């Protein structure tokens, strides 16, 4: 039981970290960035290159890979979203163009790294097992949970306390009103993309380390889960995404333990369905007042 709870918190922390970035962009732009999973994947590859080929230690490679992911986010915003902004159908066309960018990113990774699974060299992270009660966890798993929680706390602080955070919230509320109040909307959106993609990239690096397995399609395994998490948490809600991420991880694990793994996705999505019936805006979603 203890081991399964730990397994759940562990996967949940990665789902949550992936989903907060996803939901941040949605909150600001009302657009799903479907290239988020490709950024997740490319950041993992970037970390691999830095560790395996540039021989950097992991503590140096990881921030660089995260920075790279953030810059990819800015590129993504410039290429896939900004040119379409202001059009009547920008929600759908942005969705499609981000899907296109995601496919291009995947194709690039396929050309450079090939279809095979790549791995971090042996000993990138010290192999140590720690026993907590009856459960065993690797040092790496505990670090991943800690890093995820710290990054999510930093994001919450940034949004609540800093000038940039206030501007992001203002743009999310109404871009037009924010512009009238003197906020540089384009810059704030670019910043939101940078933060979102950095977090997605960090999740990618942690995921790759945890399962020591990176391939161009690695993002697919978290993409749908991430989408489920942000819907469950309430579109655009950061605390909602965090709670829903951990909840989904735990639901999945205990479904496997209780009913068998064949029912895992069925139960996860049934819970999603029931929550949406009871609370159509998700667990912590905002009422749709401003759209009226």
């Amino acid at each position, binding site marked *: 039981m203890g081991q399964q709870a730990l397994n759940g918190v562990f996967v949940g922390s990665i789902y949550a970290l992936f989903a907060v970035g996803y939901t941040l962009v949605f909150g600001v732009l009302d657009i799903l960035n479907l290239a988020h999973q490709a950024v997740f994947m490319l950041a993992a590859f970037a970390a691999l290159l830095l560790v395996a080929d540039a021989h950097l230690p992991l503590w140096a490679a990881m921030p660089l890979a995260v920075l790279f992911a953030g810059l990819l986010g800015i590129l993504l915003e410039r290429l896939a979203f900004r040119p379409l902004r202001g059009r009547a159908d920008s929600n759908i066309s942005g969705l499609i163009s981000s899907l296109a960018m995601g496919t*291009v990113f995947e194709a690039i990774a396929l050309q450079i790294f090939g279809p095979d699974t790549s791995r971090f060299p042996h000993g990138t992270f010290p192999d140590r097992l720690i026993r907590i009660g009856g459960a065993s966890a690797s040092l790496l798993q505990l670090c991943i949970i800690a890093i995820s929680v710290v990054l999510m706390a930093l994001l919450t602080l940034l949004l609540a306390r800093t000038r940039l955070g206030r501007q992001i919230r203002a743009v999310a509320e109404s871009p037009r009103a924010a512009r009238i109040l003197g906020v540089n909307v384009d810059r704030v959106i670019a910043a939101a993309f940078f933060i979102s993609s950095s977090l997605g990239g960090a999740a990618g690096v942690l995921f790759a380390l945890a399962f020591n*397995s990176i391939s161009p399609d690695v993002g697919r395994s978290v993409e749908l889960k991430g989408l489920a998490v942000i819907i469950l948490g309430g579109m655009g809600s950061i605390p909602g995404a965090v709670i829903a991420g951990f909840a989904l991880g735990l639901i999945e694990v205990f479904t*496997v333990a209780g009913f068998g793994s064949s029912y895992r996705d069925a139960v996860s999505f049934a819970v999603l369905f029931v929550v949406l019936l009871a609370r159509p805006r998700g667990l912590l979603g905002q009422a749709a007042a401003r759209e009226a």
Partner: protein
Amino acid sequence: MSSASRRMVVLLLLGIACKEKPAGEASAPSGGALIGAALSLTGAAAVYGAQQRAGIQAAAEEIAQGGGPKLQVLIEDDGSTKEQGITVFQKFINRDKVSAILGPTLSNTASAADPLAQQAQVPVLGISNTAATGITDIGNYIWRDSLTEAQVIPGAFKKAREKLGFKSAGVLYGNDDVFTKAGYDVMRKTLADQGIKVLDTQTFAKPDRDFHAQLTALIGVKPDVVVVSALADNAAAIVSQARQLGWSGPILGGNGFNSPAFIKNAGAAAEGVMVGTSWNSLSQEPANQKFLEAMKKRGVNPDQFSAQAFTGVQILAEAIKRAGGKTGREEIEKGLGLVKDLDTPLGKFSFTPSRDAQHDPSVQQVKDGKFQIVQ
């Protein structure tokens, strides 16, 4: 939506051309019989496809040098998916007008693509399809040189039991793939036949990377042995995570484990894993030594999949020879029926009346980072 259908949607929506590979790679001299090979060069089965390509190219070269019938092999990527496999088969049958088809890599793809060839009366020789049913029973134009799991697993489990003496098992298998599911069906039957108690059964899907929950549940019921049916990439992750969760007992694998990529990726965790195989790497027969030499020349680490691919080309060449050197679809089909006791890397090769492979399987175990045949 599955990742495969999702990818199709993406491709349809965008018509992205930038990731297309150059259309087909030809090997061996032009002229002679045109053979299409549908291999998984990308996707979940890519580790096998690369091995198969090496085996096919080596065999085609070998046969050309040995003065055998001229074979021109067109290699296309089936992407490890049914959809792309069907597209490749349509191209081979209608556009390239090949005389025969090798592949596709996965049973999953074969179950969808082979009926097209059967309908067009183009002989297909499967070189890695191991699902017991749903392949050669598609029709009389479908053949294979790969032993089914049903031919390999019972012998492998018997031998493993002699060595390890287990009485109960925990089972983990991929339930979204014909190949891993068929492997599981045979395992379940074999375990029941041999009186081994199955304490718990868990499943996973191909895109999964995290198996902690399933493995924790399996280890929790304390079986004597863990039995796994998975493709090589998943297999490596499963074995690593099982060791990480503290499982030190034996692990028995299905055919998907039969790849050097499995050992490379699982590292030290792979030690002791046992698996049945249809290729005995230690065989001193001249046909096997010739194959080993050809692979060494190409710098490829040989495995069961390259051996079966190599054998596939040999069988087609033999079929053409038996048909009096004619290379039409009908002639090759007739010639395949006449192949008997052919010397191949797999041993003396014949077909069963149901067009399946017939030769002796072996058992191998990972020791010092290498598959070693269990005597």
